[in-house]
């Protein structure tokens, strides 16, 4: 399971980086989204990958990490998702504005 998670994070991150380096704003946008998915999964994985361990306290079970999964990275992921989502939306608007002003969707505003 660790291997699958690591591979998928790696695949997402590398495709994201490759797309960011492309010259069209839409590709950059998708690249940034993929990169943020990779980052979110990565934060999640930093709380250690465990199954059948809840992140909230249960009555009668002692509150150590042996019985639970770390809830903090899950809270961090939530914040990170919201922020990156908002920023990606903003980037999309700016990309559209640049498309309208420069009449093409190259990141430099001109074909070359």
């Amino acid at each position, binding site marked *: 399971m660790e291997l699958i998670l690591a591979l998928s994070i790696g695949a997402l991150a590398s495709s994201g980086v490759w797309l960011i380096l492309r010259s069209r704003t839409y590709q950059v946008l998708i690249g940034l989204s993929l990169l943020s998915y990779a980052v979110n999964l990565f934060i999640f994985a930093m709380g250690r990958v465990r199954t059948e361990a809840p992140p909230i306290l249960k009555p009668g079970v002692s509150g150590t990490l042996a019985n639970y999964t770390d809830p903090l990275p899950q809270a961090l992921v939530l914040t990170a998702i919201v922020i990156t989502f908002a920023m990606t939306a903003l980037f999309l608007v700016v*990309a559209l504005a640049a498309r309208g002003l420069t009449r093409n969707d190259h990141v430099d505003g001109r074909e070359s």
Partner: protein
Amino acid sequence: MSLTINHLVIAPILLPLAAAALMVPLTERQRMLKAAIGVTSALASLAIALVLLHFADSKPPSATASTSVYLMADWPAPFGIVLVVDRLSALMLTLASVVVFAGLVYSIARWHSVGPHFHSLVQFLLAGLNGVFLTGDLFNLFVFFEVMLAASYGLALYGSGAPRVKAALQYIAINLAASALFLVGVSLIYGVTGTLNMADLAARAPFLPESDRMLFESGAAILGIAFLVKAGMWPLGFWLANTYSVVAAPVAAIFSIMTKVGIYVILRLWLMIFGADGGASADFGTGWLLAGGIATVAFGSIGLLAAQDLPRLTSYCVVVSSGTLLAAIAVGNAGVTGGALFYLVSSTLAISACFLLIELIERSRMPGADVLAVTLEALGDEETEQDSGDPIGIAIPATMAVLGIGFAACTLLLAGLPPLTGFIAKFLMLNALFLPGGAPDGVPPAALSWTLLAVLLSSGFAIMISMMRAGIRVFWIPIESEVPSVRFLEMVPIVLLLFICAALTVQAGPVTRYMQDTAQSLHTPQTYVRDVLSEPRVTPPSPKAEEAAQ
């Protein structure tokens, strides 16, 4: 007293946020009301910052409780989010408020009517900046970074137009990628150490097991890249000149503090975690910071000499200033850091004034006049010598004279020539570099000192050459002599910023003492760590007893 101070700590974040929220529903017709709210909020923020500055300075640097810690929701330190005021944060808060105030006042004359929501965006930016300077928690730092960046995206786009949108597109893309790195770094560090509190992190870092150290250091390095992108270090800072040279003038003036945010975080985190007490990780990344800083100064100087218009020239001054600070911090000597702090304040104020000033100057000139002047210079065209028969020259109009004096003052400040603060700051850095009094363990090797000396002086020389060339071109060889229409309100912030620099020069003694104390406490982070981790909870039933106990 400690109770009021404690609640003042969160005010620099809440106040601009409340002001911004208040302004959002107002229509653009009520622009003057918005401006009044914005300026009031900036002034109040400045007043609070000054109170905090006074408070932070009232204790000797080595004493316990030299910091003021605010436990949010009354959770004790490693578990909840803390806000911390020490000398460095108080200094940065003051600087941010001053720069934002200057930008706001300048914008009232003309710029704030160009587009919607200018004042709200500035207040959100101020809230984000203050939050970054106050927070003692790594993830909270990310959140405030994003608040600040989100507002800065809006401000970078302010005024619209193809060049701004193009530059903002790249600015946003780079900062989003840097934010992704920030998150990767934060989560790696959390995965290894199990804490996000900066003080707790500094306490735990020396005792990490060897097997985890590499992960921890890679996390810190990835995090560092995110901050260095913000600070504009050489291979990561190509966005800077492109963005800063096209944004609206008051926005550029306010942005002059934004590169210093990266520097602030490096000062805070790097010195705390990888300082002398860092255990096996002590001095991690010193070489990179130093080399990066020097490369940044070199890149900035070359950019300066090649710059053909004033906004670009000033943007490269920002690059040079960042590089100088990075290299000076990397020396890891408290005296040099003290000088660097002085330089940080002086260069931020000067760059801010310069961005405002050049917009006024540019107003009178044709677009492309600069390129024309450079071409004339290169071709050695002598035809510009007009009415040579007339022995009496044309008197320089008063506006141009004031602008010229302001420009000269900015040049002196940025190039580091006497008598203004730029010189004092550089002198302090070099003095500490060669005569490290009282700190024999921090003596840098001589070669390093000489390299830094050469870098500092030659960057100052490059700034002087390019600014003098620009000044001569603008003030002495008018291609078409039209006096710019300058409103009184637009001169006020420039004069104010330069006046602060002059005041800092006159009061150099106490200011230097403050900077040295700040540097001293940054280089001995144990007090900070202890203060944060031992801050008692304010138990609601008996706040009096708490106060008596302190």
